[in-house]
C-alpha cells in the first residue's frame, strides 16, 4: 500500500531524530516490563521458598523477622531457643515432625545452618518438592557438610573439598574456625530457594566448632578437631525449629501454647500467613514502582508527540504534494497514525530486546548476590495486553498532529504558504 511505503520512506529519511524517539520509548518499555517481570519472578520465588511447614518457632521477636532469618537467612535472631524447650514442644502430641536449625556462622559470605538429617526429609518447597542430592549424601560425621547448588557453582567445590566455617556472617581470618575444617559430603540439586546459597552442617558440628569459643571469641584453651569430638556435642540451644502437625486444624491452638510457653519467651508463626503479610507490605513498593514506570512511559510518548508536532511545519510542502497527487486529508491523518504506531511498535520490541539482553547479562549476578532468580521467559498474556494498550494509546497520541495536519491540508490546498 502506497501510504505504508510513504510512511516507511519518510521515517527512514528522518531516521536520526526518530531513532532517539524510538530509543526513549524503548527504555520506558524496558523499565515497565522489567519492573513487572521482576515483581512476578520475585513473588514466585519468594512464595515457593517453603511449603508444608505448619509452624516455625523461635525466640520471641517479630513474625517477619523470624520468617526472614529462619527461611530466607536474612537478618538475625535476637535470642536462642533452649534445647529443653525444643524437646518439650516437639514431643507434644500435635506435632508430627520437627526440625531444629541453628544459624550464625558463615562460609565465604554464604550462611551456614546447623540442622539434623530430618531437614532433608521434611523441608519442602514449591509444590511439595523435597531436597534432592545432585551429588553425594547428607552428613553422617560431625565434620561433614552439605552445600546448596549455588555455593557449589560459585566456589567450584567438589565432594571431599575442605570448608572452613567462620564465626558470624563475614568471613575473616581471625574469626574462622580454621582448626576444624569440614569435609563436603553432599551437594544439593538446585531449588531456586535460599537453600541453594546455604552450607549445611550437623548440630553437633556447630557445637564442635564453638566448643572452645567463649563470648564470641576464641578462648585460651584451644581444642583440636579430634579433642572436640570427645566433648559432649549435644546442642544446648538452637536458633529456631520447624514443625509439622498431625492435624492442621490444631495450628492455632499449638501456636498459642507456644506463645504462652512459660519456660522461655517464644513465638510461633504460620509460614503461609506470614509470607502473605510480608508480601502485602512489599506489594506497596511494587505498585509505586509500576506507577513510576507508567509515568516514564507517558513521558516517552509525550516526547514523541513533541517531535511529531515540531515537524508539522516542515512537512507542509510534503502534504501539498500528496494532495496534488490525489491524497485526501484523511490520508494525511493516516500518515501520522501509521508513523506513530510504527515508532511505538519498533520501540516496544526494542524495549523488550533490551530487557532480555540485560536479564541475560545480569542473571547469574543476581542469583549470586541476591539469591533472586529471574527466569527469562516469553511475555505472558498480561504483557501482551499491555502491548496492545500502548499501541492504542499511541494511536490517540498520533491524532494530535494528525488532526492538525488534516485541517491544515484542507486549508492549504495546493498552495504552499511559505
Amino acid at each position, binding site marked *: 500500500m*502506497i501510504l505504508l511505503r510513504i510512511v516507511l520512506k*519518510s521515517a527512514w529519511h528522518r531516521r536520526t531524530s526518530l531513532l532517539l524517539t524510538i530509543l526513549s520509548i524503548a527504555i520506558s518499555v524496558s523499565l515497565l516490563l522489567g519492573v513487572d517481570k521482576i515483581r512476578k519472578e520475585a513473588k514466585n520465588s519468594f512464595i515457593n521458598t517453603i511449603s508444608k511447614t505448619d509452624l516455625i518457632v523461635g525466640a520471641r521477636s517479630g513474625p517477619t523477622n523470624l520468617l526472614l532469618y529462619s527461611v530466607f537467612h536474612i537478618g538475625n535472631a535476637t535470642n536462642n531457643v533452649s534445647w529443653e524447650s525444643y524437646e518439650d514442644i516437639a514431643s507434644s502430641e500435635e506435632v508430627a515432625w520437627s526440625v531444629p536449625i541453628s544459624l550464625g556462622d558463615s562460609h565465604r559470605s554464604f550462611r551456614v545452618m546447623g540442622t539434623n538429617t530430618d531437614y532433608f526429609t521434611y523441608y519442602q518447597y514449591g509444590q511439595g518438592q523435597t531436597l534432592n542430592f545432585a551429588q553425594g549424601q547428607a552428613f553422617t560425621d560431625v565434620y561433614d557438610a552439605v552445600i546448596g547448588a549455588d555455593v557449589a557453582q560459585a566456589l567450584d567445590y567438589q565432594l571431599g573439598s575442605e570448608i572452613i566455617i567462620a564465626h558470624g556472617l563475614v568471613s575473616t581470618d581471625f574469626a574462622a574456625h580454621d582448626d576444624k575444617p569440614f569435609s563436603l559430603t553432599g551437594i544439593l540439586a538446585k531449588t531456586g530457594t535460599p537453600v541453594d546459597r546455604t552450607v549445611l552442617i550437623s548440630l553437633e558440628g556447630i557445637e564442635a566448632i564453638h566448643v572452645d569459643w567463649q563470648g564470641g571469641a576464641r578462648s585460651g584453651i584451644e581444642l583440636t578437631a579430634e579433642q572436640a569430638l570427645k566433648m559432649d556435642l549435644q546442642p544446648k540451644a538452637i536458633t529456631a525449629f520447624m514443625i509439622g502437625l498431625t492435624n492442621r486444624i490444631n495450628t492455632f491452638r499449638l501456636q498459642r501454647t507456644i506463645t504462652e510457653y512459660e519456660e522461655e519467651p517464644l513465638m510461633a508463626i504460620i509460614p503461609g500467613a506470614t509470607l502473605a503479610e510480608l508480601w502485602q507490605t512489599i506489594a506497596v513498593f511494587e505498585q509505586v514502582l509500576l506507577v513510576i514506570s507508567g509515568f516514564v512511559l507517558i513521558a516517552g510518548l509525550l516526547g514523541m508527540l513533541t517531535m511529531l508536532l515540531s515537524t508539522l511545519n516542515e512537512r507542509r510542502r510534503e502534504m501539498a504534494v500528496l*494532495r496534488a*497527487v490525489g*491524497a485526501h486529508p484523511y490520508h494525511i491523518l493516516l500518515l501520522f497514525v501509521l508513523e506513530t504506531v510504527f515508532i511505538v511498535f519498533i520501540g516496544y520490541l526494542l524495549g523488550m530486546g533490551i530487557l532480555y539482553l540485560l536479564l541475560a547479562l545480569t542473571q547469574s549476578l543476581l542469583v549470586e548476590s541476591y539469591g533472586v532468580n529471574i527466569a527469562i521467559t516469553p511475555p505472558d498474556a498480561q504483557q501482551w495486553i499491555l502491548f496492545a494498550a500502548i499501541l492504542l494509546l499511541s494511536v490517540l497520541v498520533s491524532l494530535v498532529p494528525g488532526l492538525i495536519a488534516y485541517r491544515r491540508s484542507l486549508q492549504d*490546498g*495546493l*498552495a*504552499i504558504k511559505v
Partner: protein
Amino acid sequence: MSARVIHLQDVRFRWPGQEVDLLHIPDLVVNKGEHLFIQGPSGSGKTTLLNLLTGINLANSGSVTMLDTPLESLSSTRRDQFRADHLGVIFQQFNLLPYLSLMENVQLPCGFSARKRNNAGDMRATAMRLLSHLSIPETLFNQSVSKLSVGQQQRTAVARALIGNPEIVIADEPTSALDSANRNRFMELLFQETEEQGSTLVFVSHDQQIAEQFSHVVDLNQINQSQFNQPQFNQMGHELS
C-alpha cells in the same frame, strides 16, 4: 466525450467571512488538447482558481465541469480521486518528496490512481521513458532528489504529472524559479510531452514572455468579473498596496 475538457459557468467563489466574491468567472472553456495560458499576477485569485480547477475547493455557485463531470456533484473524497485519476499538477517549486528517489517520485501518482497505474503499464519503464524524454540523465534515476538541480527537479515534476496519461495537466508558475535557459528547455519539453499524450495544458503564470508560446491566452483580471478585480486584493479581501 465532448471536446470541452474544462468548462466554467458563472462560477463565484469567496472565502468564508468575505463580503464580496473573490472570483466571478461567467465563462471559461478549454478544449481538448489546448494549451491555455492564464495570466495573473499574485493576488489576482489565480491560486483560488487553481484550487477550483483541481477540486480542492468548491465554487459557491456556478459550475466547474471537468471532462463532462461537474465537480460540485462530487463529494470531497470523490474530487480527490478525480484529481488523482485525471489530473497532473506541477508547482512552482518543491514538487518532489525528499525521501523518495526520482523514480519513486515519478511513480507516485500511480499509487493513488488505479487508472493511471493501468495506463502506465510497466511503471518503471514508463517512468524511465518519461525521464529520458525530459533529459534527465539515467544515473540520477535512483538517486535522492537532493542531487538534482532546480531545472532537473522541475522537469521531473513534469514526468510525474504526465505518468499514467492524465487528460489535464495544470501548471502553477512552474518556470518562475528557473533561469532562461532552463525555462526554454522546460517549455519545449512540456509542450512536446503533453502533445505526445494528447493532454490539455492549463498554464498559470505572470510571465508575459512565455505567453507568446501559447495559442490560447487569458488574462485573469479580464475574465474575472469580481468587484475585487480593479484594485489588488488578497484572498481575505484586504487591499494590497
